[in-house]
């Protein structure tokens, strides 16, 4: 019922925006939607593990991501208001309506308990995010959008074939029960070869959403051309959507006979993603592309973590959660940077520190956090990751450490260039950035810092219940 209200109100509001396409009304409608979304998130917490509308369940995993979504989308909305200030009416209407649909569909992806429904919602996110990416309607954004839709659709088609393979066992086909539970129950009857096919197709297909190798490229392009609030949203909430869809399949399959094979595939994919991110980052000349590659890197780490068993799942969830906050904060800040420096290009911008000291402080904090330098809580998850790797797989440890160092170098050196390098223009416009605009970034960043020392109990419980590790695990490792 709750979800129904949420869906209907979302769709209604998305439609209403077109009926009343004025700035003020649009903002009100979207604000209303955001409010509904937050309320939904709150109520969902009280309905943990209940199923609604047959295909949707508020399990621990979905609750985590609904929480992140509602925070990120609130912030995105706030920044979008400022960003779309000068857009045309229809452009803005399209923007917000797509944004609402995107939110709704992401909630669908997070909460659904059905393989196919999850697939449907993933496809909707692709379609709805297209208009957000194409907001500027320049040649570049058209190109990126085209690539995004096309590759995503091809990828998702593959994923669909994968799902078909997964359901190929006699039992599931007969009952037509494509819920995750159904799959879990019948999975042992499926031919392992088909399972492998299914897994690899789903992984490759969803890699476009997950922003990992092989289909990471479109994510980079999309991040690059999209308005920066949208980039932030893509890098966090949308990527999380891909993760949830993939993770549910993974969690079921990892328990089977092909579990080990899956771990190996994940390891290979993760390292490939990491390598791609590390190598291409060195050549990137655009701030947003660098951050996009950093997303690829983090998702690669998440995959590597997933291959490490229960603790790995804990690490992956922690990593992806923190990454959502930090990366979206960073990209919001990058948007503000663009307003000052007028460019994301590294060789065109510089001296940010002089022009916008407060903003550059925020950027510095963000960069520190994203590179997992303490006090970033990412350090905690990466520490755990390295711990597991050190115990189980030393060569991978070394490769990952090397690649991370490269990434570290890339991010730090390129950002420093922007921060304190030589400005190319003699005079930048005086920035008109009000203090509240930094607030979301600062809040997100402080989440990421505080998490090093304190993870809220309910959140920790949720992550633990998803990953299934023993209760006192963290205490033992960290002597909290």
């Amino acid at each position, binding site marked *: 019922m709750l979800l129904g209200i949420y869906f209907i109100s979302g769709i209604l509001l998305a439609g209403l925006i077109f009926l009343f396409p004025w700035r003020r009304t649009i903002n009100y409608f979207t604000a209303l939607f955001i409010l509904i979304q937050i309320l939904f998130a709150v109520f969902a917490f009280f309905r943990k593990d209940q199923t609604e509308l047959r295909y949707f369940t508020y399990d621990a995993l979905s609750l985590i991501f609904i929480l992140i979504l509602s925070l990120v989308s609130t912030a995105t909305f706030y920044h979008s208001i400022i960003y779309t200030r000068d857009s045309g009416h229809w452009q803005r209407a399209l923007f917000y309506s797509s944004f609402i649909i995107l939110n709704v569909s992401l909630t669908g992806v997070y909460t659904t308990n*059905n393989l*196919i*429904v999850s*697939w*449907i919602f993933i*496809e*909707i996110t*692709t*379609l709805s995010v*297209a208009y957000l990416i*194409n907001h500027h*309607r320049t*040649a*570049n954004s*058209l*190109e*990126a*959008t*085209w*690539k995004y*839709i*096309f590759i995503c*659709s*091809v990828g998702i*088609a*593959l994923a*669909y*074939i994968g799902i*078909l*393979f997964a*359901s*190929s066992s*006699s039992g599931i*086909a007969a009952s*037509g029960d*494509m819920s995750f539970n159904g799959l879990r129950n019948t999975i042992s009857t499926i*031919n392992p*070869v*088909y399972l492998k*096919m299914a897994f690899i197709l789903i992984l490759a297909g969803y890699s476009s959403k997950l922003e990992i190798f092989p289909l990471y490229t479109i994510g980079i*392009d999309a991040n*690059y*051309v999209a308005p920066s609030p949208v980039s932030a949203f893509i890098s966090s909430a949308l990527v999380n959507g891909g993760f949830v869809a993939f993770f549910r399949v993974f969690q079921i399959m990892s328990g089977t006979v092909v579990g080990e094979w899956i771990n190996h595939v994940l390891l290979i994919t993760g390292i490939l993603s990491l390598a791609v991110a590390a190598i*291409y980052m060195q*050549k*990137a*000349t*655009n701030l947003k*592309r660098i951050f996009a590659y950093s997303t690829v890197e983090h998702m690669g780490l998440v995959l590597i973590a997933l291959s490490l068993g229960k603790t790995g799942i804990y690490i992956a969830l922690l990593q992806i959660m923190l990454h959502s906050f930090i990366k979206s904060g960073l990209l919001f800040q990058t948007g503000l940077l663009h307003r000052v420096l007028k460019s994301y290009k590294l060789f065109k911008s510089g001296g940010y520190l002089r022009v916008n000291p407060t903003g550059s402080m925020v950027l510095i904090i963000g960069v520190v956090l994203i590179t997992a330098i303490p006090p970033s809580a990412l350090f905690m998850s990466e520490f755990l990751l390295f711990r597991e790797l050190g115990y189980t797989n030393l060569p991978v440890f070394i490769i990952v450490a090397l690649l991370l160092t490269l990434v570290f170098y890339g991010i730090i050196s390129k950002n420093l260039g922007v921060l304190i390098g030589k400005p190319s223009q003699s005079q930048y416009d005086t920035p008109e950035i009000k203090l509240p605009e930094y607030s979301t970034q600062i809040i997100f960043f402080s989440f990421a810092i505080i998490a090093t020392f304190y993870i809220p109990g309910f959140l920790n419980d949720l992550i633990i219940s998803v990953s299934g590790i023993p209760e006192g695990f963290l205490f033992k490792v960290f002597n909290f």
Partner: protein
Amino acid sequence: MLILLYVLFGISLVYIAATEKFRHYIQAYTIQGILLFGMAILELKNFSILNLILILAETIIFKSFVVPYLLRKILQQTGIHNVHKRSLQGNYTVLLMLLFLGISLVLAHELSIPSVNEVYMVIAYFTLFTGLLLISVRKLLFGHLVGFLIIENAVFLFSIAIGNEFPLLVNTGILLDIFVAVLIMSMFLTSIGHKMGGFEAESLSRLKD
């Protein structure tokens, strides 16, 4: 009867791979839609009336009418008719198709499971590969779109082959998704044509480091 449909489907794929006129693509695609409808009817034994309507919508209406209409409209708007550029000679494309057919045979044989008709799988794999091949070798965006549509056909074939009967709601969702995807893609295609004055994939390679 069924085997004839398979063969016809395969021929249509080869035709698409070999031809150089977009008009022929559209025609072949229309025929494929009808063929798919036939296969679905013949394959699925016990279907309800609702399901029938759905399949009808999916194949005949969607694949044979709406999409070809859209495609034709694009062609009219842009005035492009021929594949005048591709990265691979037509001969090689056909040879590659042959290779893929072989691979599909092997794959279908290797991955066979009792409950699934192997011939279906062969044709499904073949369709999938053809779609991917088209995307890889064609240099015009229109060709890519057709490639994507063929991949969607492959998906349809797989779902018939593996024999899933998804609940109606879900099926509608899938249908709607694909439909909207194609719709949006064609819209973007048109605007790319306007913006960039052409459909060459070359012009869409500026986003890189």
